[in-house]
């Protein structure tokens, strides 16, 4: 068994719904592949330096777990397929840092309450106005085509008419 340090970015919508369930996503994934979770705690909730999957904020979960090296590939595959885990980083470490176990236990205590993530991680553009804009563009393009076709036809006809008029005038003068 090898000791690993894992940092997982969790979707704030999942965290907001149920923190225990969100935290369980990571623990369950590790135990599924034969590992044991030593500590797992909420590291931070912060604004991302760049949006990931349309999310501007995410919750970081720091975990230390023991796992056979053969189980890492399966764990990676599960995390990649999970939509709740935006990113992850797993590193092999020598030992659990001091104070990490105490922080994890403090979080698991009954009286612990974590701040609810803010609501500003919604996508910017709503899906409704997009088709309306496209429809307007299509109709505008059709109108433009029709105008162009009319415009192209008119000068030819006008030119032909003008020419015929001139001929008629010349004939009349003669």
């Amino acid at each position, binding site marked *: 068994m090898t000791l690993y340090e894992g940092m997982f970015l969790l979707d704030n919508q999942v965290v907001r719904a149920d923190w225990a369930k969100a935290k369980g996503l990571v623990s369950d994934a590790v135990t599924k592949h034969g590992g044991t979770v030593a500590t797992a705690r909420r590291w931070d909730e912060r604004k991302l*330096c*760049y949006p990931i999957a349309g999310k501007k904020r995410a919750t*970081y979960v720091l975990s230390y777990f023991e796992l056979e090296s053969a189980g890492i590939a399966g764990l990676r595959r599960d995390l990649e397929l999970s939509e709740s885990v935006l990113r992850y980083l797993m590193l092999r470490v020598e030992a659990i840092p001091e104070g990490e176990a105490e922080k994890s236990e403090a979080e698991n205590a009954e009286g612990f309450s974590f701040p609810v993530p803010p609501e500003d991680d919604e996508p910017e553009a709503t899906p409704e106005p997009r088709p309306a804009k496209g429809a307007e563009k299509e109709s505008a393009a059709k109108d433009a085509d029709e105008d162009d076709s009319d415009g192209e036809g008119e000068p030819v006809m006008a030119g032909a008419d003008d020419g015929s008029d001139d001929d008629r005038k010349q004939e009349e003068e003669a």
Partner: protein
Amino acid sequence: MAFRSRPISPPIGSKHCDDPKLDYKDLAYLQRFLSPQAQILSRKRTGFCAQCQRELKQAIKRARHLALLPFIG
């Protein structure tokens, strides 16, 4: 930004290489080694030895992967 020909002094003095504590979670410390455009500073600017500069590079790239630090500032 004007180019600084003189290297900046290492943050933990010259003894930094004896006890490197570069961690991708220590963002306030890592940000000292980024340019205003979030580029990793060169060894000439950081004053690190080659090994510590590699560890610094690795820590900053891990933090970038987790969106803790920007790729472009």
